[in-house]
């Protein structure tokens, strides 16, 4: 998960990804951020997150994103 945190912080250094659990619900990440994260995850983990996985719940926290990656691996 450290690698994922590194990716997220690279995209949005101003966000506290360790503690934040409402990244989407609170509007902290916008669609530009999400597509950037999806692309970086593909590069780093070889996981392609498709449209049917673009549920906000999957992107609300670093744990949720990590779970999605594990599910799709």
């Amino acid at each position, binding site marked *: 998960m450290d690698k994922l945190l590194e990716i997220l912080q690279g995209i949005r250094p101003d966000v506290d990804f360790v503690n934040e659990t409402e990244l989407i619900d609170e509007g902290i990440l916008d*669609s530009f951020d999400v597509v950037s994260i*999806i692309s970086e995850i593909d590069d780093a983990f070889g996981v392609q997150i498709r*449209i049917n996985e673009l549920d906000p719940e999957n992107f609300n926290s670093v744990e949720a994103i990590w779970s999605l990656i594990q599910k799709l691996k």
Partner: protein
Amino acid sequence: MAFFEFNNIRVAGVACAVPKNVVESESYKPIFGDEEVDKFMAMTGVKVSHRTLEHQTCSDLGYRAAKELLAHKGVKSEDIGALLFSSHSPDYRRPSTAFVLQYRLGIPEEAVCYDISLGCSSLVVGMQTMASILSTSDMKYGLLFVGDTAGKSVNPNDRSSAMLFGEAGAVMLMEKTQDSTDEVKALIRSDGTGFKYMIIPGGGYRNLHASEDVEMCADGNERSLMNSFIQGASVFTFTIFDVPRLIKDFWTKTGTTPQDYDCFAFHQANLYILKQIAKKTKIPFEKMPITLDRYGNTSGASAIVSLCDVYGGSTEASTIKVMACGFGIGISLGATSFEINTADILPIMEDDEIYAEGLITYPNQLYEKK
């Protein structure tokens, strides 16, 4: 697999025209706010785009480009055996805009003319269709028109699209030769599961008289059924996953590598997407011309706009190998390769001419004697 290979077709020249009217992305700051516009410009690369006048069409721009290209090449209208207008921006609901262009250019009745209804992939698919027509007929020359006026159907308050699109009309002259080294190759794919990703839901025959009432959509943008919808995240995932796969498959099928090409004239979707595609395919980004900053996303014309921007007016004539890639609405995507002499790539023209005879504003105009 829809892979096509022609060994007797060459691209004889390309040209394009854009409207004179310029819109700066900065001008949207009072509507969308400074932060939103700055972020948009950084992400998409679009700073300026050219937009048509109210009654100016993509075919008006293509007409100007075709006139200049035919004159440059010394090819007469009567030598054109096929005319294709590959676009989502026809002059009328019917007939095909190809017939209007045939009439305006004085192309003979013996020619085959029709429209292909495609957007961002219109160049690649149009080239494949034109090459197929020429290689299986007794015709020597074909004119392929591409481009769109996508901005006309965008709600001005739609922050996802209002700043993105530029407008352009482009033309490619294709020629059948006796030289087997004149190669055009194309790999095409289609994914109808994404037909709603980019759509104008009303105005077609499914819902001809759709309401033009504007609603606030779930993505926070105002649109009516007659406006253009883009589901950005859906489109993005397709472009970053499926387009690189198509490109790599094209190289495998053609036995080529990125080093075999001088120029990657790719659809100017947006800057971030192009960077992602280059990164995932290891295409040297410096070989991928970018015109988003000055012309926006010009749909199917964008690959030719980029070629004209880089090579147009070049004083040194040399043959370059081009890989073009188009992807978008449909979902439709394709890659193609061809060679072209840089002397046959015309500079970008600006034009505001409107075809007066084509503008019909009241029913009985059609019954008036000339």
